[in-house]
């Protein structure tokens, strides 16, 4: 037989399979290593620190779990959050993440490895990313073969779309959830393919783990029924489908109700009804199949058909009826906002205000997935060509995932796995075609097993040269598809092969460079610690947040309540260990609106609110001095909107704009804006910093007025090095019963006769 390049002969098939599986294992290990290593930029560039906002709460909860045990954690009531309401933490969280770290912590300590809980938390996400790579490998293997699986594992290991949520230190639910997502899907596909109750049960158990770990479990809850329903509608009902789905649903649903935060939702809310409906439908169909197997007459089959449709309609009517009667809760707002992108902004500003809930800009698809984005449609097309049950699943997942990723930035995360899988299918098909050494149109060569072995050998040994993981394990397909080349067109000669393969490897290496660059530059910042460059190019660390939080921790009584916008609630609780009014849990919209109202009204209006909530310190984030754009003035309009949602008479958004409709902070700013507490706190004494020169807000690029705002009801307590965090102390009521404004005016009037600077120094206390 003619081959494009010489093949070594005389290798036994056993040697070939063994070598191939050894190479696979080594490749998977290397992929895991790469996945973990690329997530360590954050630790290397900064330090081993918990990132962002939510991870700080998870970290704090994990510390409770590690130090006080699981039962204490389960019953934990946190009186310092949502002051004065408190928060039942055990019943309002997904405990999977903390439980996972707790288990790891206890195992390591049982082995006498005294690892700090913080390091476990920091490194949990990279560790699980290796498992995700493995789960994706298993999943893709079911779709195509091992070589595609390895490609998919390599892709998911370094794709920025997933790295963005799983760098070291980003200790959030998503860190373990994507692994659970992929593994549940793998178990489901496996259960469906084999009709195995074991894999169905495994899917149920991992679904439970997923429910315990992330609110995004609803994605699985609806994906699997959707897949099952599509298969039924395609006329592909089999007993395997029944076995897989029923065992998954029966165990998974019951298990999911064990999580206190989920509770009875699986039987009471509309989000979960699709799964229940498909479950019921499957029972009916299975029963109908059973009856049909015992009956022969066509008339009765028609009768059964009518009965099945009738009961299906009856079932859905019952669900609708129950929804109307209030037994089943209708869709929640979060769900509506997925269909109507304008919904959240109108009705639930608190959801719309979160930056990761914004619609995705198209460059971010390229940024997060680069090459994979172009291979994705090709992979989906290849799924259409085969269209086995599992391919239907990938197609549905691709459609649903793409839609959701377009609606919300954060859902890019759920799209990434399917993109990696389909891109791997596409690329590995390409490589299979072009690495396959068999030349077409040689009909007289009729020795399929021999040629299969030979081709296998070549690619296996050839993988030493090709450093990409794809090349090594792509041979099983070649072996499988050997009988086909005779009937279908193939590739002639070595040059055509080399051109394509060289190009593919070129693109893959650019992908690797891109991923590394994006990871190190865009996704590895802890956001608690900021980095900037010195004039000589060296790194300069801006550590204002921790400076301020530690100031609070060390200089204020432990009971003093700190008010800030909800973004910083978890950080204050985690780093400063002080009670906060609102935090990132955002369960109580009114409470958040109260804070928003205090921030956006005048001092006179805000002061009673502050006093009623026992607020001792108010913390604002101000980036005007060094150009930190994520500051409170930029978030201010959301505070106004959320407050307006509750007090439409007192707070009106248009008042905060100039008559021309601009959002300004300089002399043209509206009076309401200038008198708002947030504005005053942010720019208090800002102009003085410039020593008579023109004060510039470097975030908004506006020149500030010479005469800055004055504060009567608050005292500046602390301002960090770069002015990012400013902390103000709320004054107590005047001892003589005057309102603080007149008291201040009085004391200032007296002081002015003596000397001005003393007043200022007093104010700094």
């Amino acid at each position, binding site marked *: 037989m003619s081959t494009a390049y010489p093949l070594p002969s005389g290798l036994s098939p056993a040697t070939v399979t063994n070598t191939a599986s050894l190479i696979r294992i080594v490749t998977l290990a290397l992929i895991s290593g790469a996945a973990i290593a690329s997530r360590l930029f954050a630790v290397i560039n900064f330090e081993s620190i918990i990132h962002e906002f939510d991870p700080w709460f998870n970290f704090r909860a994990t510390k409770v779990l590690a130090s006080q045990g699981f039962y204490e954690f389960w019953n934990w009531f946190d009186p310092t959050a949502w002051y004065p309401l408190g928060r039942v933490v055990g019943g309002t969280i997904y405990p999977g993440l903390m439980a996972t770290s707790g288990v790891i912590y206890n195992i390591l300590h049982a082995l006498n490895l005294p690892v700090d809980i913080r390091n476990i938390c920091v490194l949990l996400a990279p560790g699980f990313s290796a498992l995700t790579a493995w789960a994706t490998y298993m999943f893709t293997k079911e779709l195509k073969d091992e070589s595609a699986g390895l490609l998919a594992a390599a892709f998911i290991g370094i794709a920025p779309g997933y790295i963005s949520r799983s760098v070291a230190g980003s200790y959030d639910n998503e860190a373990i959830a994507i692994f659970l997502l992929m593994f549940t899907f793998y178990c489901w596909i496996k259960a469906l393919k*084999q*009709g*195995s*109750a*074991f894999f*169905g*049960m495994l899917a*149920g*158990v991992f679904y*439970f783990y997923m429910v315990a770990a992330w609110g995004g479990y609803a994605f699985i809850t609806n994906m699997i029924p959707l897949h099952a329903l599509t298969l039924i509608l395609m006329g592909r009902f*089999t*007993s*395997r489908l*029944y*076995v897989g789905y*029923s*065992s998954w*649903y*029966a*165990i998974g*649903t*019951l*298990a999911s*109700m*064990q999580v206190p935060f989920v509770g*009875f939702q699986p*039987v009471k809310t509309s989000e979960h009804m699709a799964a229940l409906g498909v479950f019921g439908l499957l*029972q009916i169909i*299975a029963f109908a199949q059973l*009856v049909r*197997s*015992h*009956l022969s007459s066509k008339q*009765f089959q*028609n*009768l059964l058909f*009518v*009965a099945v449709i*009738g009961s299906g309609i009856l079932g859905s009517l019952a669900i609708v009826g129950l929804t109307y009667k209030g037994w089943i809760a209708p869709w929640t707002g979060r769900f509506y906002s997925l269909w109507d992108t304008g919904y959240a902004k109108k009705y639930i500003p608190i959801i719309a205000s979160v930056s990761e809930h914004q619609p995705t800009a198209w460059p971010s698809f390229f940024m997060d997935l680069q090459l994979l984005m172009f291979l994705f449609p090709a992979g989906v097309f290849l799924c259409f060509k085969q269209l086995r049950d599992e391919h239907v699943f990938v197609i549905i997942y691709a459609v649903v995932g793409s839609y959701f990723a377009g609606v919300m930035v954060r859902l890019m995360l759920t799209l990434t796995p399917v993109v990696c899988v389909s891109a791997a299918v596409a690329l590995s098909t390409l490589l299979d075609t072009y690495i396959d050494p068999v030349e077409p149109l040689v009909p007289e060569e009729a020795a399929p097993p021999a040629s299969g072995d030979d081709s296998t050998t070549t690619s296996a040994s050839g993988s030493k040269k090709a450093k990409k993981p794809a090349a090594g394990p792509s041979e099983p397909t070649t072996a499988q598809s050997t009988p086909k080349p005779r009937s279908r067109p193939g590739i002639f000669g070595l040059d055509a092969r080399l051109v394509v393969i060289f190009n593919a490897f070129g693109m893959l290496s650019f992908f690797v460079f891109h991923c590394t660059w994006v990871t190190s530059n865009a996704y590895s910042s802890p956001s608690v610690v900021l980095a900037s460059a010195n004039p000589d190019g060296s790194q300069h660390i801006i550590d204002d947040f921790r400076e301020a939080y530690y100031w609070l921790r060390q200089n204020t009584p432990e009971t003093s309540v700190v008010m800030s916008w909800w973004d910083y609630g978890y950080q204050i609780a985690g780093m400063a260990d002080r009670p906060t009014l609102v935090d990132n849990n955002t369960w109580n919209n009114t409470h958040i609106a109260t804070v928003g109202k205090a921030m956006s009204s005048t001092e006179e209006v805000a002061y009673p609110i502050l006093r009623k909530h026992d607020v001792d310190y108010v913390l604002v984030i101000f980036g005007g001095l060094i150009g930190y754009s994520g500051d409170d003035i930029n978030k201010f309009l959301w505070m106004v909107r959320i407050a307006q949602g509750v007090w439409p008479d007192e707070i009106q958004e248009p008042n905060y704009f100039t008559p021309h409709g601009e959002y300004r902070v300089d002399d043209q700013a509206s009076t309401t804006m200038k008198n708002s507490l947030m504005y005053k706190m942010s720019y208090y004494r800002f102009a003085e910093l410039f020593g008579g020169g023109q004060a510039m807000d470097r975030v908004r690029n506006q020149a500030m007025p010479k005469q800055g705002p004055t504060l009567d009801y608050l005292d500046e307590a602390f301002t960090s090095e770069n002015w990012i965090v400013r902390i103000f102390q709320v004054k107590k009521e005047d001892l003589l019963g005057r309102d603080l404004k007149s008291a201040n005016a009085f004391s200032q009037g007296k002081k002015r006769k003596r000397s001005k600077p003393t007043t200022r120094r007093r104010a700094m206390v």
Partner: protein
Amino acid sequence: MAKSTSSSPAQTTVVQTLWKAYNDQTPDRLKFVDAFLFFLMLSGVVQFAYCVLVTNFPFNAFLAGFSSTVGQFVLTASLRSQVNPENKDEFKEVSPERAFADYVLGSIVLHFFVFNFLG
């Protein structure tokens, strides 16, 4: 509805033929499984009727009991279809022994959660 158009004597004959065909064609093992399925269905119906008619007060207990019957029902039904000789081609990778092992394991996991949920 098609059901109402067909006359009642015809329906009884349908049921009779069905019952006869079932009795003739089903192996004894499967009949045994079916008896258990029937019992589970009755148990589920009784629990559901109790919940609707009397009270659903410890809702978690009701859910646990009801899920236990439903879960056991579907697991048993799965076992039935897996060991059914007619389905041999569909379940190539699941031998009857494997099916029974899966069934036992699934039941244990199910009842672990049921027990945890009874409260």
